[in-house]
């Protein structure tokens, strides 16, 4: 089950980078906000279709849960705006590494403390070693993005 879910996550990352490659070109033509709107609107339409035909009945609806649980999009949308503004200032390489750093640090925190109603997974020596590996990976991602900016 764990292995299957890891494979799914890797697939999710692949989907995300295909989306980024497509949206990068669309955004350059029609503007970032229009592009982001199309992405979310199309996502909502596709999900609505899937719900109509495939979602089994649920005990609770979105209206029953505490409102803070619906704030996910309020975390995703500012990310888009911040990236647009920041990439011009600090460059792609630094921005990419900073996003991943924030993502990983926060995910370790949520896991460790079990925030937002998640099951707590304690920080361990294995996780510390993983953080070191990720820091090395980030260094290589940074240096692979850096010369591109200079030649672009």
């Amino acid at each position: 089950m764990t292995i299957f879910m890891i494979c799914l996550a890797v697939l999710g990352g692949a989907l995300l980078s295909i989306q980024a490659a497509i949206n990068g070109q669309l955004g350059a033509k029609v503007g970032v906000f229009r592009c982001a709107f199309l992405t979310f609107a199309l996502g909502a339409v596709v999900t609505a279709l899937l719900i109509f035909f495939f979602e089994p009945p649920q005990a609770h609806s979105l209206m029953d849960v505490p409102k803070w649980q619906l704030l996910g999009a309020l975390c995703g949308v500012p990310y888009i705006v911040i990236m647009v503004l920041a990439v011009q200032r600090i460059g792609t390489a630094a921005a990419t590494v900073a996003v991943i750093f924030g993502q990983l640090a926060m995910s370790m925190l949520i896991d460790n403390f079990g925030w937002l109603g998640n099951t707590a997974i304690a920080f361990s020596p294995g996780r510390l070693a993983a953080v070191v590996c990720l820091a090395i990976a980030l260094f290589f991602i940074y240096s692979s993005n850096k010369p591109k900016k200079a030649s672009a």
Partner: protein
Amino acid sequence: MLFRFDLKEAIMQLIFLFLVIAGGMGLSVEAGLLGPLGQQVGDLWATFSIFGVGAALTFLLMLFFSPRNSPSFFAQPGWQLLGGILGPGYVVILTLATPVIGIAMTMIGILAGQVFKSLVIDHFGLLGTPHRRIDGKRIIALVFIVIALALVARG
């Protein structure tokens, strides 16, 4: 480029750096909200909450802040509009995976997929991006990400 230390610019850059880190943290919070939500209302409904609210917010942003004369969606080739089809796949996967393997492992897996796929996209110049030779540094990065994934999986 001037080699003069500009304090104001340095502070601006630092502020943007922290903003971007906060943005990345937001992505993990989003994933952290999705898992428990999906277990209560169903995975697709949880996904819909992201895209429904996101569409409403970005509609407002587009309405007020988009450049007035940008070209229509209908002037673009159809396949360039497909980005939004892939988004729900990503969000459903977050909703399914985080309760089972935790936020950190999900995020590292996502990262591995992104780096792998961007290597493939660049190498073959897919999707109209400029063709670029496969990049040794990013292969090394991918190897370290996979090691990290294995370390987190072992606990």
